[in-house]
């Protein structure tokens, strides 16, 4: 161990190298750290401004010192954003939007993931004639711009009476999540040893038994990834919510927009900031909570067992 210490730059070079190579602080490394610090300030500064502004009172905001700490921190703006801020004629805050988003996500996420999982499973293990073509078409769906298909879908959904309803928006999210999720699951299942599937077949398990008893329990890591993708995607969605959900089911993002964009009265920056943070919280929490699982999931998938 002493060799490593003695071998620091500037000391005698006559020391025989032994043990771990001493780590040096090179200019390149300093540059990297400097860049990382600047980049994190760049991304954290807006958050700082948002949090401090949301805790300030309106007179304090008018002073224009956006980086300063609030003199008398107050959560009034947060309560207002949640409970009483006005979106057009209603003054119920973000609360109804939050619960609408919860409803939409709680239905869309499991349904889309379950169907994609089945798709991927069938495409990987039960190859039927034209399976590859079907998969290619499904993938192509990921590249279709939403705007192109928006109008036909509106017509179609209203014909069957689902336009502007909760089932309508759930169907939309399921369909538009299908391409990427199927790709995710197909690739995951394709990476599993085919012998596992063969063994299960020799053991007498059928399509559903193999799916539920063997493949489903094995796909926990990739499912966590899929849940993260879907929850954040659906929670942050604005366009589909605005168009397809209908007045009753406006998601939080749409309601947030209505609060921020409202043109009557004074602009309450503190309320706006609080509302934005509230809306973003769910996605942030998902990232923070899943971080550990995310890594664990990837690691678990990497180990052959």
């Amino acid at each position, binding site marked *: 161990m002493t060799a490593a210490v003695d071998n620091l730059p500037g000391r005698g070079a006559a020391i025989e190298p032994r043990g771990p190579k001493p780590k040096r602080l090179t200019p390149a490394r300093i540059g990297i750290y400097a860049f990382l610090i600047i980049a994190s300030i760049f991304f954290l500064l807006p958050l700082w401004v948002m949090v401090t502004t949301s805790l300030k009172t309106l007179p304090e905001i008018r002073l224009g010192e956006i980086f300063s700490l609030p003199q008398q921190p107050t959560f009034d703006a947060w309560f207002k954003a949640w409970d009483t801020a006005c979106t057009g004629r209603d003054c119920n805050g973000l609360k109804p939007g939050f619960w609408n988003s919860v409803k939409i996500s709680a239905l869309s996420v499991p349904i889309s993931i379950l169907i994609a999982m089945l798709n991927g499973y069938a495409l990987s293990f039960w190859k039927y004639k034209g399976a590859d073509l079907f998969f290619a078409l499904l993938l192509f769906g990921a590249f279709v711009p939403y705007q192109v298909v928006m109008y036909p879908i509106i017509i179609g959904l209203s014909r069957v009476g689902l336009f502007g309803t909760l089932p309508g928006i759930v169907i939309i999210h399921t369909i538009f999540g299908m391409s990427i999720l199927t790709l995710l699951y197909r690739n995951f299942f394709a990476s599993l040893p085919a012998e596992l599937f063969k063994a299960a*077949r020799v053991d007498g398990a059928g399509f559903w038994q193999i799916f539920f008893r063997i493949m489903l329990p094995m796909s926990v890591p990739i499912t966590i990834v899929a849940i993260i993708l879907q929850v954040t995607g659906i929670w942050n969605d604005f366009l589909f919510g605005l168009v397809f959900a209908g007045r009753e089911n406006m998601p939080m993002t749409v309601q947030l927009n209505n609060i921020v964009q409202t043109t009557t009265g004074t602009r309450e920056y503190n309320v706006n900031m609080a509302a934005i943070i509230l809306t973003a919280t769910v996605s942030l929490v998902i990232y923070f909570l899943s971080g550990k699982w995310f890594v664990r999931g990837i690691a678990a998938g990497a180990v052959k067992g």
Partner: protein
Amino acid sequence: MQSSVSIKDLSLSFGQVKVLESLDLDIGQGEFLVLLGPSGCGKSTLLNCIAGLLDITDGQIFISGRNVTWEEPKDRGVGMVFQSYALYPQMTVERNLSFALRVARMPKPEIADRVKRAAEILQIGPLLERKPVELSGGQRQRVAIGRALVRDVDVFLFDEPLSNLDAKLRSDLRIEIRRLHQRLKNTMIYVPHDQIEAMTLADRIAIMRNGVIQQLDDPHTIYNRPKNLFVAGFIGSPSMNFLNGRLEGGRFSVDQTTIPLADYAFVNPPQDGKVVLGIRPEHVAVGDDVRRMPVQLESEIEIVEPMGSDTIAWTKVAGQPFTFRAASEVHLQPGQKVAIGFDPSRGSVFDAESGERI
């Protein structure tokens, strides 16, 4: 011998690629058959066809006298053991073993009985509560065999079961599979990892090439009387020496060397023409033993490979490469001239055109 697995006129093609071509094979009750061949020869494919995991293009498969050509894998009475073990990772060993029985909705006491019996045979009783990740390679393969065992099937299919194990474990498990076969007396069809597995385990070996069975015989016959050049070159390591020459009046001649073939057991009366004489490196004598051999030659050693138990030397005979295996006590050096001898009646003569044994 009553046939246990019988394959009639089996063909399988993927698009334009013919993997198996009108293949016929009869496997007796309780026989240990090994399918051997270079990679891509269709041996694993054949195994998958027997198991029902691949849809065949043409032909029929009978197992225990029943036509199972259209049956699902589970209804064929086969158990299969895979190279990657293919254990269900989220299940304990006990659950792995009982999976097929649970799928078949067997009564619980009987499941417990069968699992217990299989665990006893394979000595994996203490591991029943563990997950596959907590097992060593050898233990995993035992569980994989156990999974086939609990189903009480007529036919076991092994697809390179020992490939993922290290050399020591492989030879241990090889003996164990042999023992298992002697105890259970099931029919076993086995695709081995290497020739040693094939030679040691098999009652009969089927040598395959491009989806066609080249020779189906017991290991002794395959080794000593290979039917054609391919089989002769494939079996044995280092592989058989081939001397290209001519057959003239019952004598083999190459350059100035003539080798009498008076004692050689020809399949058909020989005709003069181009032939290949095959001599196994281990049938070549050096040192004092040379004097007892009908054919004696002088050759210069080019390369020496000491293997521990014996030594392999590379030389040339009549300008053609020739290897021989010598006891490790015999001291050999590159450049050294040694006398070598062999008995052509232990060799094999092939027609140079068709490659068939003559």
